[in-house]
């Protein structure tokens, strides 16, 4: 009995472990229904599709950590991808690395604007980013004259980036893993990273202890913007075209992935590992439903139900945890 108790304790103790547990069961069930699921080719597919989402989700986690929210990232992604594709169209001799830097730069500026309006202008994050969502989306159509940038207009170097890889691992996966490592390190061991957690857990206390909240806010939104820029470049490279409406609505998926990964919307709570697992579960969902013959029209409804269940489970485990903690104190 005690053994069972301790096992359940370990499982519910950390969000990451319980998520891994759920993912393993999920994979096993899907694998039983369709043996193609755990083939190398499909796993590669799944990861490549989840990568862009996970890069954005890490940035979103930082934003959620300080208690903010950013719903402009879909538009930032489109705008930076579009500008980088347009530059490439007009200067075909430009090396791919510059195109990436342009996209990241554009994203950074977009994020900086968000940060300035939120921190200096005192506008609530959801309203500010809602406004910028419209502005950036409009700007995307304007700079491109409402046209696409086609495959032929994008340099082959740039397109090949997401097709090639090192040691058989796709470049996109490598880029994203580098992002995970950098952010995990920053948030865990770097002073600025700890400040982000501090601002999210208790803004007043953080301010009194000498942390400049405004700077942290601007920094976090700029980081989010830069990551959206990176994701925008990867998006253009992967789909070999830049469109005005790319990434529309992706922000909702990203926030959902963060929540499944255990990030709290009140701020101060969340880890890189959790977010990556959250993205992985949404990625598996998108990938597996067609494999087990579920109509693609059902995907969104199923996704919605799963998010609600994840949310409610979250609350339930938290309540049991709190109750147990209280009990321990009574003894």
């Amino acid at each position, binding site marked *: 009995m005690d053994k069972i108790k301790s096992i359940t304790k370990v499982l519910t103790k950390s969000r990451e472990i319980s998520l891994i547990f759920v993912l393993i069961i999920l994979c096993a069930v899907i694998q039983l229904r369709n043996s193609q699921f755990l083939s190398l080719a499909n796993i590669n597919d799944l990861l490549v599709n989840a990568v862009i989402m996970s890069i954005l989700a890490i940035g979103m986690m930082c934003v959620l950590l300080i208690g903010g929210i950013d719903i402009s990232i879909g538009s930032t992604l489109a705008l930076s991808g579009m500008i980088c594709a347009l530059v490439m169209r007009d200067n075909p001799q430009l090396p791919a690395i510059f195109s990436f830097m342009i996209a990241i730069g554009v994203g950074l500026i977009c994020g900086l604007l968000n940060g300035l309006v939120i921190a200096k202008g005192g506008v*609530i994050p959801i309203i500010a980013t809602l406004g*910028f969502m419209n502005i950036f989306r409009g700007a995307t159509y304007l700079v491109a004259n409402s046209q696409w940038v086609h495959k032929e207009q994008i340099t082959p170097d740039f397109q090949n980036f997401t097709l090639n890889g090192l040691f058989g691992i796709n470049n996109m996966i490598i880029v994203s893993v580098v992002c995970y490592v950098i952010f995990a390190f920053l948030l865990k061991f770097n002073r600025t990273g700890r400040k982000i957690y501090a601002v999210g857990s208790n803004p007043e206390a953080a301010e009194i202890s000498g942390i400049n909240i405004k700077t942290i806010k601007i920094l976090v939104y700029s980081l989010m913007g830069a990551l959206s820029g990176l994701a925008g470049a990867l998006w253009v490279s992967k789909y070999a075209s830049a469109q005005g409406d790319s990434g529309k609505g992706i922000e*909702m998926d990203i926030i959902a992935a963060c929540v499944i990964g255990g990030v709290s*919307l009140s701020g101060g709570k969340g880890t890189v590992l959790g977010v990556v697992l959250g993205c992985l579960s949404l990625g598996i969902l998108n990938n597996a439903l067609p494999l087990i013959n579920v109509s693609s029209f059902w995907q*969104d409804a199923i996704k*919605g139900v799963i*998010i*609600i269940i994840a*949310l409610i489970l979250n609350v339930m485990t938290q309540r049991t945890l709190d109750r147990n903690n209280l009990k321990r104190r009574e003894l």
Partner: protein
Amino acid sequence: MAQPKRVIVAEKVFSWKKFFLQWEWFLVLVFILVNVMNMIISPYYLSSSGLLTATSSFLEKAFIALPMVFVLVIGEIDISVGSTVALSSVIMAVSYNKLGIPMGAAIIICLLVGTLCGFINGIILTKFTELFPMIVTLATMILYRGIAVMILEDQASKNFPSWFSNIFWGKIGSVPYMLLVFIVFAVIFGIVLHKTTFGRRLYAIGSNKTASKYAGIEVQKIRLIVYTLAGLFASVTAIFLTSRMGSTRPNIGEGYELEAISMVVLGGVSTAGGKGRFVGAVIAIFIIGFLRYGLGLINTPAPTMLIIIGALLIVAVMFPNLKLGNLFKRKTGTIE
């Protein structure tokens, strides 16, 4: 024994300066500006038929904005209403076209579906008070539209009876039914918010949930009512929208939630809760609507329109926070 007369120590002194330095007057100013702009653009604008055409071009969205004022006043947010519009419209269409239910009953079903959607939001949020409205309504936003897509897949549903299109297009004299319905509801919502205990309680909850709870306000019950109202009025929008288009698809009403929130926030209702007045929201509905209509008249491309609306929202919210913004300080609705 005569009751001792109550002495009110801090009575509010009426001052003309304060009266005119309210956010609503700023909105009126913007409203006039927008209309002058429209008049310059189109000579036919300032006729009764021109104005009424302009009004019908956006008014169906405004029904979402009415309960959204309540939602924002209690300091919460509901982003699932756009999907509720789609789901209730799709179910109405399917129950008429596929199940053969008479149209009148289908309309009632539509209202019921909307109410149910709002009720589910409310139940989840009141049973699990730890959850944030933003994330719960995000999940139901995906879910409701997902169900709409499940039902109709990528098809459209049309062939409504001819009287159904009259709901949107019909007029008394030259005034559309929709405008009358809107005025009635706007007045009711305004009175409820400012003149009833229920309205005062909304402000109390928005200012301080814990204090309201200890003051004996049934916070959770009121939250449930507010979310259910939001769902119900999303289905009212669904009826008008479907009647206007004569057909429905699972992707209708996309982005309506954000438009409604923009309208309400521009109207001076703070997303932090407890602040703002109903008049402001109604003026803001017309500002955004007429602005869009006017920009449409001069063939402003859709992207430019997006940029203008987005910039207007940010500037309007940022303006009172800047130093020069002391001029138009937002009136708080909490102290009367």
